[in-house]
């Protein structure tokens, strides 16, 4: 008899169900905990508008939009990271490290502080993300996203974009700089409704496309020659993956700013939970949302009434984990 009692498919299913359940719990926690504490039961009632007026107001008017924004942006960042890591075959190759976040931020801040442009921040952030990726790709040479040059050029572009953001902020009136500040550290405070809607639509579309191309994407983990011989059009698949990664990053940054490390850590954890050989798209997205909401909840409550931006929390909590991953003797699935 084979000792396989739990098949890999069943394990995957269980992981996804557990993550979805956990996300639900985190959502309820994020809706009930804050300056005003509301019991979980009242929170659920408030969602349908059937709790007391105070709870209804706090949950529906004050917290729900923030939770939705955190959920969507966390999922989008993690999905973008998962894609980029797969395409580059390198777990450090996330939009944050390749400088796409920073470029998106720089472009968006330009529109906020009004450096002669008045396009909506989401579109500016998208333009920034696309520009950074295009430049990094252009500098990467023949190896495309696969070589270290892609990552190194990305790091350079990210540094420049970060500096440009600082210069812009230092040259405008203090009020405008204050308005743009949450952008630079990553926060769910500054979200605009329009940006969240755009992100929701973008995430839905990207996810549907990814479900459709998940099999060819999976083969990109094998050597190129094998992927081709299995019928994968690798250039098309890579381009599509890169484009979706850029789209998701741009739209997410427009909502929450450059919240670091979620794009790196969520897929990393998802890979170790799910069966190998399949790119853990859904698990990454779920974990990204969980990380984002948990970090934001901690940021709101730890030093209340002072609020710590979510980007600072992910940096503080995420860095030790990142170090542990890097120093671990045997990395899993990606180099």
């Amino acid at each position, binding site marked *: 008899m084979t000792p396989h009692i739990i098949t890999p498919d069943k394990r995957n299913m269980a992981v996804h169900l557990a993550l979805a359940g956990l996300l639900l719990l985190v959502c309820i926690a994020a809706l009930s905990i804050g300056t005003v504490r509301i019991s979980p039961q009242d929170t659920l009632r408030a969602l349908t508008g059937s709790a007391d007026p105070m709870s209804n107001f706090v949950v529906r008017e004050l917290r729900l939009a923030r939770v939705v924004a955190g959920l969507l942006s966390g999922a989008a960042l993690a999905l973008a990271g998962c894609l980029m890591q797969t395409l580059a075959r390198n777990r450090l190759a996330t939009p944050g490290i390749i400088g796409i976040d920073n470029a998106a931020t720089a472009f968006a801040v330009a529109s906020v502080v009004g450096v002669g442009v008045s396009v909506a921040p989401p579109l500016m952030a998208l333009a920034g993300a696309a520009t950074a990726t295009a430049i990094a790709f252009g500098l990467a040479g023949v190896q495309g996203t696969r070589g270290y040059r892609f990552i190194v050029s990305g790091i350079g572009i990210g540094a420049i974009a970060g500096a440009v953001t600082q210069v812009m902020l230092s040259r405008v009136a203090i009020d405008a700089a204050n308005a743009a500040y949450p952008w630079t550290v990553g926060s769910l405070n500054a979200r605009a409704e329009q940006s969240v809607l755009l992100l929701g639509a973008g995430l839905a579309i990207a996810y549907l496309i990814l479900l459709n191309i998940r099999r060819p994407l999976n083969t990109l983990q094998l050597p190129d020659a094998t992927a081709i011989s299995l*019928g994968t059009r690798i250039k098309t698949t890579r381009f599509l993956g890169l484009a979706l990664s850029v789209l998701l990053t741009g739209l997410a940054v427009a909502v929450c700013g450059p919240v670091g490390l979620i794009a790196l850590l969520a897929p990393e954890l998802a890979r170790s939970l799910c069966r*190998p050989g399949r790119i853990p798209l859904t698990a990454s997205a779920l974990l990204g949302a969980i990380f984002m909401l948990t970090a934001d909840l901690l940021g709101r409550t730890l030093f209340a009434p002072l609020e710590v931006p979510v980007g600072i929390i992910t940096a503080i909590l995420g860095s030790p984990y990142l170090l542990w991953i890097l120093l671990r003797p045997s990395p899993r699935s990606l180099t």
Partner: protein
Amino acid sequence: MSHTDTATLAAERITLAHQKYIVAENLDLRLPTGRVTAIVGPNGCGKSTLLNGLARIHVPKRGAVLLDGKDIHRLPSREVARKLALLPQDNSAPEGLTVADLVRFGRQPHQGWMKPWSEEDQRTCDRAIQAANMSDLSGRALETLSGGQRQRAWIAMAVAQRTPLLLLDEPTSALDLGHQIEVFELIRELSRQGKTIAMVVHDLASACRYADHMVAMKQGCIIGQGAPHELVTPALVRELYGVSCDLIHDPATGSPVLVNVRRQH
């Protein structure tokens, strides 16, 4: 799909290049259907490049690779993948991937948005794993296997693709003698079931022993093609490898064996 399915693969005056450098020029080749073809030659002669060209990994600068008479680069990639499988030299895989996981990849060309994983896919995978004699190891992660076992797992993946054509790039490099024989006998068995096979082989003796047809390459050109016992002569060996040798015939199988190999003076 049955094993009686056949497909023809031929190269018509193809020139292959790595970026600017022309590696092989003006090659004409037709794989004999249902047979094992070995491509031999010294290091850097372009034999792997030729195999990759046949498998549409490289796009030829000039000429065309014809699959069933049609230019392989104009056919939909998935359609080609249902007729032709390649076992490349690089067989790195994500860590933790099991033999069964790997073999499942072989069904990809047969799956689609409207065609999820089916009973038939599962049966085909099971049979492929069985054919490669890997049933007991199907739940093991690839990195825990020996070189020979890993190579058989990759062959099982290509077998699960159920293609009439199978191309193998140095399937026995880095394997010890016992594992080499194991892999070669598996290849012979697949050929008996009707597959048309082409493989790049380093060892001339093995090529003589296990191939029906041989293509000899030197400096990017095909310098001879034919049945091993007709093609392989001391003159050919000298031209290919720059060594002198004598030729005898294996009393058991009749295939040519090189003896008294020495540097040419």
